[in-house]
């Protein structure tokens, strides 16, 4: 019976699935083309002299002005912005991972009064758009005057501090810390280790994969961030890359070659980190969604 039924289907099963498979590959390759082409176009235009970027018909192959565009950018303060972005993102990533692991450890491994209220408070803020804080934060930064600066407007700390207690990071660290066996921590306590030692020498080293994922996520968040740096970095010397590039868009004569080169140079480091640490990147993205 079964055999006749197969024959009645008209086509052998393997042929059907081969046809389907080819269709699927075609769909996937078209998707991949759309996914990659804008990047390719960015690099192509970044290598064109400004006058050639908006030429009609558009260039589809690399030009010879990549180096000239880089020089033009750096002559216009791009190096300083690159440093600002890198410095802010590295300091932010290190500090926010540290703070999140401290807090996540407390939430995961201790029972204390106010635990669920405090944790709920962190989670609630995930729902509040960060734009709400912009006006009072700006006023706050304008009021603070210690550390020699006239105010904190256009300062590194003004960009680094506000998002430092990252609720997503705290949530992520709590989730991973919960898997840590209490016996392991108690054994260290029995040996006379202080709470601080238990945390740094026992708990943290087992968290390396999560710490790496969170550090990469935080670095990328800060590197790509635009809204708040645009508001607070009003001094050209303190601008981060996105703010600097936005300033190029605002000029009366836009140098599109430089603009695209700046965009490419901002995108490239993240792309390289992504290709090197693909697994951590994706687990960072998933942690926010699937485990929630």
């Amino acid at each position, binding site marked *: 019976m079964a055999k006749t039924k197969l024959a009645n289907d008209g086509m052998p099963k393997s042929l059907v699935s081969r046809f389907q498979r080819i269709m699927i590959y075609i769909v996937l390759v078209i998707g991949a083309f759309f996914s990659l082409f*804008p990047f390719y176009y960015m690099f192509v235009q970044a290598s064109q002299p400004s006058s050639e970027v*908006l030429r009609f018909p558009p260039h589809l192959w690399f030009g010879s002005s990549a180096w000239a565009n880089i020089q033009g950018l750096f002559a216009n303060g791009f190096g300083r912005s690159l440093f600002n972005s890198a410095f802010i993102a590295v300091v932010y990533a290190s500090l926010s991972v540290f703070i999140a692991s401290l807090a996540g450890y407390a939430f995961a491994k201790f029972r204390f009064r106010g635990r669920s209220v405090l944790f709920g408070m962190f989670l609630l803020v995930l729902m509040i*758009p960060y734009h709400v804080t912009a006006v009072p934060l700006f006023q706050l930064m304008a009021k603070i005057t210690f550390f020699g600066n006239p105010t904190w407007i256009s300062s590194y700390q003004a960009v680094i501090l506000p998002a430092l207690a990252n609720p997503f990071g705290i949530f992520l660290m709590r989730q991973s810390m919960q898997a840590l066996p209490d016996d392991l921590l108690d054994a260290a306590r029995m040996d006379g280790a202080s709470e601080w030692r238990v945390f740094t020498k026992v708990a943290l080293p087992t968290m390396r994969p999560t710490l790496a994922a969170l550090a990469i996520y935080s670095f990328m968040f800060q590197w790509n961030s635009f809204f708040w740096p645009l508001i607070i970095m009003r001094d050209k010397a303190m601008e981060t890359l*996105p703010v600097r590039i936005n300033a190029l868009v605002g000029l009366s004569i836009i140098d599109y070659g430089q603009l695209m080169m700046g*965009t490419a140079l901002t995108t490239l480091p993240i792309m390289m980190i992504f290709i090197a640490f693909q697994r951590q990147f994706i687990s960072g993205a*998933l942690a926010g969604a699937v485990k929630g």
Partner: protein
Amino acid sequence: MGSQMLTPAERRHQWRRRLTPYMFLLPALLVFGIFMLYPIVSSLQLSFESQLNPNSGFSFDNYRRLFGDKVFRKALTNTVFLLLFQVPLQLGLAMVLAVILNNAVLKFRTVFRLIYFLPAITALFAVALIFRLLLNDEKGLVNYVLNGLGIQSVPWLSNAWPAKFSLITAITWRWTGYNMVIYLASLQSIPDELYEAAELDGAGAWAKFWSITVPMMRPTILLTTVLSTIGTLQIFDEPYLLTRSGPSNETLSMATLLYRTAFQSAEINYASAIAYVMVLIIAAFSLLQFRLAQRGED
């Protein structure tokens, strides 16, 4: 255990243990309190102060003005319009790609996953600028290709409807791969036995998708819907850089209006009211989606 039985040293030890979690929480709480909680409360307070006479005390002026403000209404309808088109489009595409990529017989699955995820690591401002070139009205590549196909150039960035469509395209490009990766992980957690049992009952691919995949992925679908909704309601970088909110405010979003009001017109009280209405709208949408998901479960 009566605490009066403890020696002073033991009591000190216990006291310290009780204090420990708060010490670990201290840095997060300090930063959180100063740079999140204080601004959130302060913003609410600002929104109830009149811009014109700041010392007149509690006032509904800003909210009253908001309800009659045509520009705000435009920003709101623009943002909701984006949401209604872009969230289903982006999530539907992500689902299709995830289901296809979940096929075990395919080769190069990790390569495709990497390629599709790549836009999701790109800075939003970069996405906006690249699409600004691609969609340039007179000299963009998209119009060049259209002309080649015998279709007239479309004013992608300078006309109301095409500009909205351009925004949706750029956002969909940026986020589809991100959601696809989330769906892919969720798909892989569905036990194969469920599909095998359905196959024995003679279910086809379409039936299996609706009777097994979708119900099993309900929590993930809900979560991505809520996250994309919140994200779209707060959208700033793309309209600010891709379309500059134009033409004539046709792609103005609530967040770009907030920025303009607070930092270009310096109307901080009115801007705070806009911010709080945004909070309310986001909360309402999230709640609605959770409710709908719950009702679907019954």
